[in-house]
């Protein structure tokens, strides 16, 4: 199986120039991560973000997490409902019109019966919530990640996802709220709500990581790949993972591992100039 999404081939020729330029920028520096040529800059931004998080965002999120659960669920649902519109658009753009229709159905149900999205009635009705954005759509169209990029305040991203973010933002209904204080409050609430959802996970990552920067980089790249494949990425069987290197019994299934490909291939840009 190829690691490129099935729909990708159709769009590849259209986007080849963009993909190529992203790929060129991803030329490896010796010793470093092939997808992180900007590592020194990224590390600096990462440290900055970490400081902002430690002293500002995380404490606020911790206070917010004390709010009653129904309140937090309502807030999460409200913003989730707003997002479902864009999720639907992206599902259509990715060649999944049925998923898109289901997303628009969700918005219809949740905005009405669900009291402006505060209650996620649609999920109970069996309309599954999806998770799409423009970065994933570009990936489906064949655009590679490009170099890893840590954005100030926003955190881990890639060149492709950063460009896509501009589209995501311009499609964000909150950005079109006329009243500036309301708009800013909504944005702040959304950020705090999202951050509160990561409390606990951040602690686990801190404990697990030997190098937090590398841990988050690897996490982000794998996480995005999983999203692009809607939670079912083709499995990567590692060529270095040979049975018999230790006392583990031989697996007789080596021939069955059709998805064999080096780990690097899954994260490398689609168009590799080398």
């Amino acid at each position, binding site marked *: 199986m190829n690691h490129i999404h099935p729909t990708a081939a159709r769009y590849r020729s259209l986007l080849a120039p963009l993909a190529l330029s992203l790929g060129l920028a991803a030329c490896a520096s010796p010793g470093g991560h092939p997808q992180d040529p900007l590592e020194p800059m990224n590390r600096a931004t990462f440290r900055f973000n970490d400081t902002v998080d430690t002293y500002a965002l995380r404490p606020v999120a911790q206070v917010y997490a004390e709010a009653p659960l129904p309140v937090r669920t309502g807030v999460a649902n409200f913003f989730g409902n707003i997002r479902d519109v864009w999720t639907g658009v992206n599902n259509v753009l990715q060649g999944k019109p049925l998923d898109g229709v289901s997303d628009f159905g969700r918005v219809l149900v949740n905005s009405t019966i669900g009291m402006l999205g505060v209650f996620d009635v649609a999920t109970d009705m069996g309309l599954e919530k999806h998770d799409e954005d423009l970065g994933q759509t570009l990936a489906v169209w064949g655009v590679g990640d490009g170099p890893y990029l840590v954005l100030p305040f926003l955190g881990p991203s890639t060149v492709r996802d950063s460009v896509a973010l501009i589209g995501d933002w311009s499609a964000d209904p909150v950005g079109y709220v006329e009243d500036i204080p309301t708009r800013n409050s909504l944005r702040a609430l959304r950020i705090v709500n999202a951050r509160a959802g990561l409390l606990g996970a951040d602690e686990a990552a801190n404990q697990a990581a030997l190098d937090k920067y590398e841990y988050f980089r690897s996490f982000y790249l794998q996480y995005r790949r999983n999203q692009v494949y809607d939670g079912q990425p083709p499995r990567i069987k590692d060529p270095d993972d040979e049975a018999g290197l230790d006392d583990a*019994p031989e697996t007789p299934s080596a021939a069955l591992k059709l998805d064999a490909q080096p780990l690097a291939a899954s994260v490398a840009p689609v168009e590799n100039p080398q």
Partner: protein
Amino acid sequence: MMTKTLFPRVSRLCAALVLSAGMSMSVLADTQAPDALVKSVTDDVVTIVRQDKAIQSGDTRKAVELVETRVLPNFDFAHMTRLAVGKDWKQATPEQKTALTQEFKTLLVRTYSNALTQYKNQQIDYKPFKGKPEDTDVVVRTEVRQPGAKPVQLDYALERQGDAWKVYDVMVAGVSLVTNYRETFAQEVRNGGIDGLLKSLRDKNKQLESQVAAKK
């Protein structure tokens, strides 16, 4: 686990024979299927945590104890470590391999146990299992649901070893907790060889140990 004797080739052959015999027998003996195994272990652990006030209030040592008795027997840490170390694994001596496995196991167990102490009232959903009876390498998919938060995908990769299934990778939101270490491990080996990596792992474990001690 099969042991190697003075005649590796013969023993390898014997092992293969025993293994295949064991496998065909275990089919008859109705081994626990991988999805059933994941479900029974998860259900057991969740039931215990739900009743254990000490674990809920952050007693990491008790959580570690639970993980060691209930979860660990179903994991193949040698395989996990091999995966995390990647191509450098070949240059490690048998002693280094054992030591790396031990340290990596300690690190993973501690992290996982700490996550358990944060358990509130999550619910685990089991996705339909798509494996075939003849498969020897499968993924069991689950989802952790929590009110007010996005469901988190939690998948287990299992490998058949004789008549038992062993977990060799855990994926949270599609991220392998094992291969997530690979770049860091490779960097450590580049900087200080296998011993450098071992030292870093030992230092990390000591640091976590002292944090647990300080909490008490």
